């Protein structure tokens, strides 16, 4: 199979960045929905969304999408927005495109112009790492209709979302067929979107809770058959763990360029800062970390593109990629910060370092420690949670 032959990630990332660079400064200051629409006005950004909605495969579309996300980061679009785009693209739209009933089909136009926002509501306040313990439940009435009750928390984009991909138990017993996946419009009676949390990481995208208070659900709201929620959850989380860290690739590349330029031009003691081997070696470390994240994420993209391994079989590798990239991003930001001096902690200095975002990366899409247990279990260790 020759899926990725025509895709040149560097060219695509550069083109996307060029589309966005002139307007990059206007992002992150105003309304999230407005920022989202502005982002989707860029042709490359919108085209990658269109691929995911149509489920077009076989031509390196996933590699292309990662390159577009890289380009968004390279352009200097705020990290939270870049993350939100990658999250909706890889964590929701691509997994749903594989569902035969095409649940997003009625919404394609409004998703493409950014007027409709999605969120992926899985985590609950009592924990997100053990889906079989979830309390949100859809219960069937005698007349065959369903009623959904429960609360999801820490959901990216929830305060603004128009359409909610969520998971609920459809059986009270704890077993692998107890969960189902649902796609619920946020304006349906009983759906209550909470106020945005005062989050410290990836602040340009809001995060919040969603309550389902006696929401009427029909069979048409089920993404896949009753009881198959865990199978779909395995798909969405594998997509996320494989590709969500694409959001950091362009950001790291941009920071590396900034550091190189700054340390070449900024003089201390009569010499450029970068003439110090101590400083220069730290920049080399940044390059290594950026290279590693880039290589790992693009490798996952290529493997998904060529379809030689079914996605579910990539779940352990995806977990390793997510852990590795989150760790590398945190180390990257920790090294980069001091190179810029005080500017690293001034929000509008142009050199601000997003260490909170890097810490968040070790938490979302399955905490790194939980994923370690999953990896160890896959190796055959008798490890329990």
């Amino acid at each position, binding site marked *: 199979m020759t899926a990725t032959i025509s895709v040149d990630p560097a060219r695509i990332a550069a083109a996307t960045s060029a589309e966005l660079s002139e307007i990059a400064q206007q992002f992150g200051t105003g309304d999230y929905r407005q920022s989202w629409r502005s982002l989707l006005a860029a042709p490359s950004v919108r085209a990658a969304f269109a691929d995911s909605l149509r489920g077009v495969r076989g031509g390196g579309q996933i590699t292309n999408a990662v390159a577009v996300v890289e380009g968004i980061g390279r352009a200097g679009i705020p990290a939270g927005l870049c993350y939100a785009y990658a999250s909706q693209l890889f964590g929701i739209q691509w997994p749903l495109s594989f569902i035969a009933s095409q649940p997003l089909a009625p919404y394609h136009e409004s998703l493409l112009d950014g007027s409709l926002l999605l969120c992926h509501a899985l985590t609950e306040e009592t924990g997100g790492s053990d889906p079989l313990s979830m309390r949100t439940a859809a219960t069937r009435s005698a007349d065959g209709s369903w009623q959904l009750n429960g609360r999801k928390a820490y959901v990216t984009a929830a305060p603004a979302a128009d359409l909610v991909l969520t998971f609920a138990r459809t059986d009270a017993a704890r077993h692998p067929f107890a969960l189902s996946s649902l796609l619920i419009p946020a304006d349906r009676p009983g759906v209550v979107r909470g106020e945005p949390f005062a989050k410290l990481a990836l602040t340009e995208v809001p995060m919040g809770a969603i309550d389902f208070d006696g929401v009427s659900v029909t069979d048409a709201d089920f993404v896949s058959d009753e*009881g*198959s929620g865990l199978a779909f959850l*395995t798909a969405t989380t594998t997509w996320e763990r494989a590709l969500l860290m694409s959001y950091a690739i362009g950001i790291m590349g941009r920071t590396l360029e900034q550091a190189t330029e700054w340390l070449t031009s900024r003089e201390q003691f009569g010499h450029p800062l970068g003439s110090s081997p101590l400083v220069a070696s730290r920049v080399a470390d940044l390059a290594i970390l950026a290279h590693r994240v880039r290589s790992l994420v693009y490798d996952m993209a290529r493997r998904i593109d060529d379809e030689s391994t079914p996605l*579910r*079989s990539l*779940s352990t590798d995806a977990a390793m990629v997510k852990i590795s990239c989150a760790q590398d991003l945190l180390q990257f930001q920790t090294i980069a910060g001091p190179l810029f001096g005080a500017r690293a902690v001034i929000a509008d200095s142009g050199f601000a370092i997003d260490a909170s975002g890097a810490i968040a990366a070790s938490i979302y899409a399955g905490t790194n420690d939980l994923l370690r247990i999953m990896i160890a279990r896959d190796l055959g260790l008798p490890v329990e949670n």
Partner: protein
Amino acid sequence: MTQQDSQVSTTITVEEVCAIVSAAIARRSGRAETVEPDTEVLLTGLLDSLTLVNIVAELEERVGQRLPENLVVARNFRTPTTLHAAVGDALGVQSR
């Protein structure tokens, strides 16, 4: 996936399904369980979520294509025979 690929890869016997289920259970529980076509695997209590996901992943690798979520429901995982029939149905639908 080319037409030729799917013709080559989309057959699986009920014995192979038994072997996949047995191996997945053994991998998770450390116990080698004999799984026959009519073994009520759901009732054994050995089908936890990781085992289930591993069985689906292994089946997908074996038949060389993705299986739909709708296949992964309790009624299809009652026995290897029901699972085998469900995989056959899914492949039949997809190749048409």
